[in-house]
Every structure is written in C-alpha cells, then in structure tokens.
C-alpha cells in the first residue's frame, strides 16, 4: 500500500547522504579538486562566500565551496552555521582604508589624482572571448612589476572633504550594532543597515542598485573611488589602552558620490553611499553603495518611492541564507495543512448553490 512510502525516513536519509557524497566526488577517474586549488584559483567564489557567510577565512570558504559542490549560497550557509559557534572576543577599531596598500584604486570623478589610477588585476577591459587555451592549462608569463608609492594614497572623499563639498564621515559612537546578537528592528540605524547589506545576497543588491539607476529611487551616483587591497585589523584591549594589530584583510571599498543636499541655511554638499566587501568584490561593493545611499532617503528628506528606498523591505529580504531556507522549506511535508485546506474547500463547495 502507498502508505508505506512515508516510512523508513531514517534509512532514506542515510542513503541520500551516501549518494550525495558520491555525486560530490564525481567521476573517480578525474582528480579530486583540492581545497587549496579552490582557495587560489576560484578566488572570486571564495570572496563571495566569505562575504555572504560573514567569515573572513579563505580556507574555510574554499572547503565550504567544495562541500557544497560549488553552490555558493549553500557554501555561505555552511560558513554561517560554523560562524554561529565561534566566540566573539572584541570589536575591532574601524578599518582605516586610507592606510590601505591598494592593489587597485580607481576614481571615475577625477582624471588624475594623488596616488594615480591603478587598474590592478581587473577584468574590466578584457574581451569576453572564451579562452580555449585556458582549457589546456599552463603558466602565464609573469606580469610586469611597478614600484608602489611608499606614501599612503588619500581617499577621494578626503580630497573633496577639504573643501567641504561632501558630507563628512559619520562619527563612530561606541560599539556598532550587531544583528547576529540583536535582531533587526525598524527603523534600523545605518550601522545595522550596512552590516545587513555587507552580508546580503549579491544578486539581490545588484538588482536593487540597478533599479535605482533606472528610476526607482534615483540617487545620481558617481564612483568617487573604488579601492581594493590589504588593510590592517586592530583592536584596543582595555587593559592596554592602545591599539594592536591582529591581522590583515583584503577588502574592496566603494565610495559613491551622490546628488547634493542642502538648504538656504546649510550649504549644499554631495552625499555618500558606502560599500565594503571582503576580498575582491567590486560588483558587490558598488551595488551595496547604491543601496546604502538609497536607503538614506528618509534621513535626507527624499521621497521614498522605490523598493530600494524601503529599509524594512530591503533588509528583511537581502539575506540569502534566510531567503533560501524559507523558499525551499516549501518542499517539506505540508500534508496536514493541505488536508485542512481540502476539508474547508470541500465544505464551501458542498454548501455553494450554483
């Protein structure tokens, strides 16, 4: 009888997991992929998983990608679940990206500027032709080296800031919000919003940012600066009273310069949108900066007409771990609820007089 189909769940789960492991390994005649290969050769996937998984650890992210068979949302979920078990020791000082030694630094608002334009390892000007030679493999010729400037490279918005043309950095007030400890509440302050966006789904941020460009909450953005490189992480233990460096991160930062705001009494200034991503995450950082700026509509007295300006809508739906869980849970059994729907529908139909 068909009823037995729902029995034996335990055996079915074991068998499914065994099959999954076999499918993950793939054809045994092909070499198994190493976590080190993923970490070093699939770097952009690793960056995305670190950002959405909210853990900066290339090796763990690479392991998660391997375990998830390259499903990056699943990999970010694995990393998040691991993250939830880690203790928190301290809050770091704000990263000083002005002291970053950039691997890439470009500005779209000035042709040249102190520190210069530095392309770095970008795909921007590649022709998107499938490189069949890459299928064969091989070692590329070494890239030419330039000697970097020894001095710090000033951030573009600091240059604009000297003239008061752009709003200043907000003043950091104590320990920032942490939505992994205190759930989001609305209206959400900018620190909580930025944290949510930094972990948010890249595709979702990208589409929302795109929508603002097409008129659903326009913010007139210019890329003030994008920089990517290593930056020091510092904490200030209370018993020491001074900052110590505990490591380095590679991050991508995007500063958008947006339409100005002002009044008869306050001189007009450019406003800003901010994006920061672990690793080399330029698309993510740019989209985040667009969405961050559009979420400031209320604070800047703009009409909120587009979805990207609705703080509750954006923040409640940007997390792909939550989203994938709730969408996919629909495949779990719902036959009790469906049965109750059947009974109500049958009753209503039975009583309807045609």
């Amino acid at each position: 009888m068909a009823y037995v189909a729902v029995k034996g769940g335990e055996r079915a789960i074991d068998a499914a997991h065994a099959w999954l492991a076999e499918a993950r390994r793939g054809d045994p005649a092909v070499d198994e992929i190493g976590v080190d290969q993923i970490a070093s050769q699939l770097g952009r996937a690793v960056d995305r998983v670190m950002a959405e998984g909210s853990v900066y650890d290339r090796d763990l992210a690479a392991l998660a990608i391997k375990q998830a068979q390259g499903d990056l949302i699943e990999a970010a979920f694995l990393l998040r679940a691991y993250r939830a078990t880690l203790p928190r020791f301290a809050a770091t000082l704000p990263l000083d990206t002005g002291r970053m030694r950039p691997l890439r630094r470009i500005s779209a608002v000035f042709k040249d500027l102190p520190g210069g334009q530095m392309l770095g390892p970008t795909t921007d000007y590649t022709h998107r032709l499938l490189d069949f030679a890459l299928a064969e493999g091989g070692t590329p010729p070494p890239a030419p080296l330039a000697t970097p400037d020894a001095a710090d490279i000033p951030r573009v918005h600091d240059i604009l800031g000297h003239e008061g043309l752009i709003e200043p950095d907000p003043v950091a007030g104590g320990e920032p919000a942490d939505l992994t400890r205190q759930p989001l509440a609305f209206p959400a302050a900018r620190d909580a919003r930025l944290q949510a966006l930094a972990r948010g789904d890249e595709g979702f941020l990208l589409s929302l940012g795109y929508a603002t460009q097409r008129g659903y909450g326009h913010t007139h953005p210019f890329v003030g600066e994008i920089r990517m490189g290593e930056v020091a992480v510092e904490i200030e233990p209370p018993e020491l009273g001074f900052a110590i460096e505990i490591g380095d991160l590679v991050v991508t930062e995007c500063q958008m310069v947006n339409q100005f705001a002002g009044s008869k009494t306050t001189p007009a200034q450019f406003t800003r949108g901010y994006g920061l991503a672990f690793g080399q995450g330029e698309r993510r950082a740019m989209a985040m900066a667009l969405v961050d700026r559009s979420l400031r509509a209320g604070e800047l007295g703009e009409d909120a007409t587009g979805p990207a300006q609705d703080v509750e809508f954006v923040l409640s739906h940007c997390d792909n771990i939550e989203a994938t869980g709730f969408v996919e849970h629909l495949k779990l059994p719902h036959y009790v609820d469906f049965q109750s729907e059947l009974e109500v529908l049958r009753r209503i139909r039975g009583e309807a007089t045609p």
Partner: protein
Amino acid sequence: MTQGYNFAYLDEQTKRMIRRALLKAVAIPGHQVPFGSREMPLPYGWGTGGIQVTAAVLGADDVLKVIDQGADDTTNAVSIRRFFARTAGVRTTTRTAEATIIQTRHRIPERKLREDQILVYQVPLPEPLAKLEPSRAETKKMHALADYGAMHVKLYEDITRYGHVSISYDYPVMVNFRHLMSPSPIPAFDNPKLHMSPALQLFGAGREKRIYAVPPWTTVTSLDFEDHPFRATRAPHACGLCGATDSYLDEVVTDDRGGRLFCCSDTDYCAGRRA
C-alpha cells in the same frame, strides 16, 4: 555523542540568552519576544526556532519526542531527533506519554498533555497580522494598541464571500484576552488543545528571530463571531487503520481512480489504539 560541541549544540551563553527571552515570553503570554537567533546547522524553515528553544530547555534527563505533521517517522522529524541524539545524547521516544519535551511542526498530539511536559512549536511566520500588514514596524504598533480590527474584518469578509471563515490552518488565536497570536500552521482542528493546556507551550521562529509562549492553564480562544462560532473540522471519516473518529486524519491517495485511505496523522496515537 558528537565531540567538539557543547551539550545540545548551542553554547551556554546563547542558551542563557534564549532562556531570558523564554522567561519574558512566559511572563507576557502570546507576546513575540525578539531574540538573537543563531544560524543552525539545519536550514531556516526546517525548524531552527524550535531547535534553538529545545536546545535551551533540554536537560540530560529529558526524553525527547519530535514530530512533523503529527508523525515521528517523517524525514525532518527523524533528522531533528537524530540531531539531539547526537549533540545531547538524550533519550528519545516516539511515545507522547513518555516524552518530557515534544518538538512539533504543524500538529498538537491527540493525547492530552501533562503539566510535566513542554511542547515546542516550530514557527515559520510568528506575526499573525503579516498577511494583512507586511511591515513589522506597523504590526508592532498594532499589538501594542491591541488594534486587531483588521483581523476581524478579514474574518467577516471571508464569511460574506464564502459563508465560512476560509482559514483552515494557522488560525489566529487570542491569548489571555490580550495578544493576538499565530498558533503556527497547525490545523484549526488543533486550536482547542491550546486552551487551558496543562503543558507549557513554547514557540520558536528562527528566521524571524521571535520567541513566544503560552504558559500552562492559559486562556486561548480562536477568533470568531457570536453568530459564526469557531468550528474545528476534520475529514468526516474514521481512521482506516485504528478506527478513531476523534483524531485528525491524513488523506492518503492509494490509486489513480479516486481511492483514498484516511488515517490518523498522529502516528503514536494510532499505534497506541491498535496495540
């Protein structure tokens, strides 16, 4: 037991945070308490809220039962039961009478619960007003003001359109005459069991990061009108396996010619009657 993790997976700090939320929830029956929900090693939607609540109240001497759709043998119930067997090493059971903690998805057991038992519900959408008002900032105000008119209007509109309230599961309830509450997607048939239950009832919504509770012996009423009283419905059949006429029934399709088997959704209740 799995090495390298704390008893029942969560660290003690996290459990303490959850217990504080639980105490607040018990103190204000039906009120949703925000909590710092963690990513669990099971996906959101699989019962992460219920699992966190269970982990926070579970002790080494507890006996755990896990059901999904009333059954102990559905895959997700098996998976969660195994999770706690692995991470806490507690005794598990499929017998409602033997369990001290029962984690459930979508059902309340048929057998009457006792004062020494805790029922933990997995909750997908804790906000009963969500389908009427999507903004949680707004619904929070509505709860604060006990402004539940919108829900009564919804029920009224159902009655004018269909002759009945069309909500068949997750039927909204009033707790302790004060808070409108989602009973989780249990069939409306189960709603009367919420009322004056001797057992403590805890509700966990992991993705939405909310905990709420119905303490023992609390008044829980399903929303209705004097001229359209609440009615708990079930399929008008006897269980095809045990013959019960008082239990909630699953409808199992047995062939492609309209053949149906109606049988108890509560597998322990059904097995107990056949034993």
